[in-house]
C-alpha cells in the first residue's frame, strides 16, 4: 500500500484528530503524510508526523478521502505499530504499557461474574 501512496496529504486534511496533534494543523499536509509513508517503508518520520500518527484514534475519515483508494486507516495502524517499535526499532512514540492490565480485568471479572461464569467464560 505504501508504494501506491503519493503523499498528497488528503488523509491529513480529512482527519478529525489533527486539532489534537500539536503542530499538525500548521504543517504542510503532504509532509505530514509523507512521514507516515516513510515509516511504512522502513524510514523515519518527522516529529510532526509522529504527532499525527500518535493522535490517530481510528476514525477512518482518511479512507474515503484518499484518491488512491488506499486503506489509510490500516496504513496508519501499521505506521503506529512501527513508530512504537513493534519490529524492534527504537520507539518514536512513547509506549504506554500497563503491566497490571490482565490482573485488573480479572479483578473486575471477580466483581461482576459468578465463579461458574468465570470458570466457563474466561
Amino acid at each position, binding site marked *: 500500500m505504501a508504494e501506491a501512496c503519493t503523499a498528497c496529504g488528503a488523509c491529513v486534511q480529512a482527519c478529525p484528530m489533527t486539532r489534537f496533534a500539536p503542530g499538525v494543523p500548521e504543517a504542510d499536509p503532504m509532509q505530514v503524510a509523507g512521514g507516515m509513508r516513510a515509516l511504512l517503508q522502513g524510514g523515519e518520520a518527522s516529529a510532526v508526523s509522529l504527532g499525527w500518527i500518535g493522535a490517530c484514534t481510528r476514525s*477512518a475519515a482518511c479512507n474515503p478521502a484518499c484518491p488512491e483508494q488506499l486503506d489509510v486507516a490500516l496504513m496508519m495502524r501499521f505506521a503506529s505499530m512501527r513508530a512504537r517499535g513493534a519490529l524492534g526499532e527504537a520507539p518514536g512514540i512513547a509506549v504506554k504499557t500497563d503491566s497490571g492490565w490482565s490482573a485488573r480485568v480479572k*479483578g473486575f471479572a*471477580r466483581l461482576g461474574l459468578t465463579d461458574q461464569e468465570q470458570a466457563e467464560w474466561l
Partner: protein
Amino acid sequence: MAVTHHPLPAERAVFWYGCNLLRHGDVLRLTARFLEAVGVDAAPRGGPSHCCGSPTEHNARITEGMGRRTVAAFNATGREKVITWCPSCHMNMADLMVPETPAQFEAAHVTEVLWQRRAALQKLLVRPVQARVLLHRHAGFQPRVAVNDLVSNLLHLIPGLELVAEDEALPGHMCSALAGVPGALAAAHEANLAAMARHGADTLCTIFHSCHREAVALERGRAIRVMNWVHLLASAAGWEFRDEYKHLRNAEDPRAALDEAALGRIGADVFTQLMEPELRRKPVV
C-alpha cells in the same frame, strides 16, 4: 420498522466478548442471554486468554502470537461463527489475526446477529422504556459494521423509547482511543452533553464498553443517565440487572460502596492497587 416474521434456525457460535468487557459483567451476561433467547447457542469466551493482541501492539511478535492462539482456540471449538462485541477485536481479527492464522469460522458483530434475529428479539421487548435517548456514536467502526445504524434500529424496537435524531459521530472507534489523546475525550463528552441539551435528551446510550466506562461519570451532578444499549434492551425485556461499574465509579467512596464479600472475592490488594485508582479517577468534564 418492518420486522421479519420468519425465525432463523438455531446456530452454534462463540460469543467473543474481548477483555475489557469483563469490567461490565452485567452487560456480558445480558448479551449472552439475549443471544441465547434469539436462538444462538453462543459460548462466551474472552479475557486475556482470548486476547486479540491490542494491548501488546508495540511488540509485533507478541501480538502475532496472541492472535494465533486465539484463532486456534476458536477453530478448536468447531463452532461456525464468532460473534464479536469489541470493535478493536473485530478489526484485529480481520486485519491482523486471520491473515496469519486461517479461520474456520465467520465473524459477525453482535449487533448484526441481533438485528438479523429481530423477529425473536422483538417478542421479548414488551415493557415500555420511558427515555429520550441520544446515541453515543463513533465514526471509526461504522464503515466496517454499520453499528450506529444497527443499534439505532435495535433501540427503535423498544416501546416507549424515543431516539433523538442526531447523526453527528465522534472521532475514533471508541472512547478508549480518545482517552489517550490529551483533550480529545473531554471534547467528545462536551459534544455529547451539548447534543443532549439541544435535543432535550435524558439518557445517553453507549454502544461500546470503553465508552460506557468513560461516560458513566457524566451522571455526577447532572440530571441525566448513562446506559448501554444492552441495558435498554434488558429493561424492555423486564430483565433485572445492576450496573456495578457505574455504581462504584460514581460512589463517593468506591471502597465503602463495595460489599465485604465482593472484596473477598477480588482480593484487597488487587482492588486497592489495580481497580480503585481507575474507579477514583477524576471525571474529565
